[in-house]
């Protein structure tokens, strides 16, 4: 895992809750949209909060797919779940909302789960890249030279 890859995982974690929050904030400003007035959806997209939320969610999708290109699904998903914890902590310390003990337990469980996965390997299946082929060759060479010694 390189620094750049950790940055991508951080993007996955941050962009989803940030996008959801902005979308939610914007849609509350826009108000209810009924199925009989679908053109109202277009004016909703023009709301700056909604537009920013959509942009962040698109960024989330791109970062998530990038992460999936070099890490297991069961490695990337817990990273996404860390976003829930982030939102709760922002709600507590920036917005001074009250967090019930049950929710603190939830935060602890998610953090624990993420810790378990992060301590293990990121990739356990082959991915089709020149680099992975090279690193496989390197490990093979390292193994053979190790055997010689």
């Amino acid at each position, binding site marked *: 895992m390189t620094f*750049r*890859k950790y940055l*991508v995982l951080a993007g996955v974690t941050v962009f989803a809750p940030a996008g959801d929050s902005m979308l939610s904030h914007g849609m509350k400003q826009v108000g209810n949209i009924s199925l009989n007035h679908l053109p109202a959806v277009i004016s909703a997209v023009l709301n700056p909060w909604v537009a920013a939320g959509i942009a962040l969610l698109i960024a989330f999708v791109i970062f*998530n*797919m*990038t992460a*999936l*290109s*070099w890490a*297991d*699904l*069961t*490695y*990337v*998903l*817990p990273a996404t*779940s860390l976003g*829930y*914890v982030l939102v*709760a902590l922002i709600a507590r310390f920036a917005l001074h909302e009250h967090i019930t003990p*049950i*929710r603190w*337990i*939830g*935060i*602890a*469980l*998610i*953090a*624990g*789960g*993420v810790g*378990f*996965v992060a*301590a*293990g390997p990121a990739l*356990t*299946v*082959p*991915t*089709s*890249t*020149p*680099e*992975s082929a090279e690193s496989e060759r390197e490990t093979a060479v390292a193994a053979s030279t190790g055997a010689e010694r």
Partner: protein
Amino acid sequence: MKHLYTWSAIMAVAFGSVIGDVLLARAMKQVGDVGVLLRQRGAWTVVRRTAGNPNFLLGVVAMATAFFSLLFALSWGPLSVVAPASASLTFIGNAFAAKIFLHERVDRRRWLAALLVAAGVALLSG
């Protein structure tokens, strides 16, 4: 009866998300390490390989199905049940699906993580 509708929709959300996640993960493994591809072949190759991948296209369809099922679920049940239930089921389902279909090495550590995260999400948004 409404209860049954809600839970059917929640199951549809979880199934759609799991199938979508697995297909996207498989697609991106076939595309290859995006960081390396960007450096060696440029952004256009990444876009072309991803958009032309059948698993990616099927994954998007599955994700869309999950999204519309979520809308149905929300019209039948309360958000405080629908959101945590579908998210938790998706986490557990993904651990199974990743092991069976993607052949990821889901060891005890990862099982435990999937269960902890699923329980945590249920408590947090419940």
